[in-house]
């Protein structure tokens, strides 16, 4: 009898609908066109009084301020990715440890942070991590909100890097371990010289995907008052008189800003994926 699995999703079929595969270069240009057209439409709608500057003029005026905030988005994303990568690699290897005492906590941490909403993690970190930490030298380290947010964003990415690393290691054929073992490599040496170098190629595309997701998540920090791009845009609109006609151009600008940064990364990821697929 044929077993029916109603909840099974065909990943291969699904992936063809995902934007990362569906979007081609010309479609990116199309999106840009739509943005510019809608900007013009927004402009036409706003019947501003003669003495107040137009929405576009206001946006241009505040652009440096928003871009300054965007630098913080980049800084947070880089730092969080760095933390996530270092901890995630360690966690991924611990998940494969021979010792249950190391394996179990690594497994729990990985799955806890992989399966929780980022926003909730963000709130928990904000509430649990103290504002000030006393260093051994007697000096105090101030953990400002953006640092806390960076830590919070690094946790779910760390958990996913952990899974990427674990998956990459187990995907290396057993024969590699055996031949290394028979050549007198220790387990650590085998990992260092033979297994991990082979994992890098397999892990880079998913790792880059998670970076893109992370960079897109950084505006969440604005909810907690971090002055990144979205937070600054909101502050700018407030300062410019909180006029409703500002909303569309400001948010569309943010959209374009993030798109212009993330989209090339996504194209690059796909190129690397294809290149490695051909090589192996």
């Amino acid at each position, binding site marked *: 009898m044929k077993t029916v699995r109603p909840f099974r999703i065909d990943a291969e079929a699904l992936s063809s609908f995902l934007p990362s595969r569906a979007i081609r270069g010309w479609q990116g240009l199309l999106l840009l066109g739509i943005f510019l057209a809608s900007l013009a439409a927004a402009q036409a709608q706003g019947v501003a009084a003669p003495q107040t500057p137009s929405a576009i003029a206001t946006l241009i005026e505040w652009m440096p301020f928003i871009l300054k905030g965007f630098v913080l988005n980049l800084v947070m994303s880089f730092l969080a990715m760095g933390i996530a990568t270092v901890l995630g690699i360690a966690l991924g290897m611990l998940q494969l440890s021979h010792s249950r005492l190391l394996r179990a906590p690594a497994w729990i941490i990985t799955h806890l942070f992989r399966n929780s909403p980022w926003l909730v993690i963000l709130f928990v970190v904000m509430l649990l991590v103290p504002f000030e930490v006393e260093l051994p030298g007697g000096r105090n380290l101030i953990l400002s909100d953006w640092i806390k947010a960076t830590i919070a964003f690094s946790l779910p990415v760390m958990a996913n890097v952990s899974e990427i690393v674990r998956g990459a290691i187990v995907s290396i*054929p057993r*024969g*590699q371990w*055996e*031949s*290394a*073992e*028979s*050549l*007198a*490599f220790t387990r650590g*040496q085998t990992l260092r*010289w*033979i297994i991990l*170098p*082979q994992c890098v*190629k397999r892990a880079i595309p998913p790792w880059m995907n998670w970076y893109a997701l992370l960079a897109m998540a950084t505006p969440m920090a604005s909810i907690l008052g971090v002055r990144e791009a979205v937070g600054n845009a909101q502050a700018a609109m407030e300062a410019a008189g909180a006029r409703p006609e500002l909303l569309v151009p400001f948010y569309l600008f943010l959209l374009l800003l993030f798109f212009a940064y993330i989209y090339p990364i996504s194209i690059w990821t796909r190129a690397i994926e294809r290149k490695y697929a051909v*090589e*192996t």
Partner: protein
Amino acid sequence: MPLVEVHDVHKSFGDLEVLKGVSFDVRQGEVVCIIGPSGSGKSTLIRCINGLNNIQQGSIKVEGQEVNDPNLNLLELRKKVGIVFQQYNLFPHKTALENVMMAPVKVLKEPKKEVEERARALIAKVRLGGKEDVYPGHLSGGQQQRVAIARSLAMRPDVMLFDEVTAALDPETVKEVLLTIKELAAEGMTCILVTHEMGFAREVADHVYFTDRGVIVEHGPPEELFTRAKDERTQRFLSQVV
């Protein structure tokens, strides 16, 4: 003293007993072939000799050193015993030369320059001169297998184990690998081979063991075993494969 002494070895995977009391000796410079039907425990046996598989009962000694000893210095054992696998298992991210050099440099911490000289000589010896900088993915199966032999030899082992090294190869590349092994044997390397190449076993072996269902059924010099097998199981197997 024999170089390798296998005495009453028992090995089980869970409830399945694969080796049921196997004993044999291999002397320095001897070439020994182990033949027998699939699933008779040949590969398991050979893998026990370098400690890749542990045994439950019995004793395996290499140069007098017990392999089945929890305090065994595995590094010392593996310097003495080289193994070549059916699936070559070359490191795909390293060139042929780097594959051969890796273990002496990283594990034995030998000077890189010396190792490179030796590695180049070994690659030439397995008739792959000119392929030093090629990655395994661009070599044929037979070429990869010869790199694997060179890689193992780079550790300067006293005994070489060959685990069905031609079983995964195209027929036309089998010959070149067998030739390499033959030359090695002629130079006096002690070799233990698990093989299905009966003609080859007959030609190079000093002694042939026929195994079936975890025991050695019959053994002797190849001329004797291949022409005047006494046991009915051996006769039946040989009539099927030769």
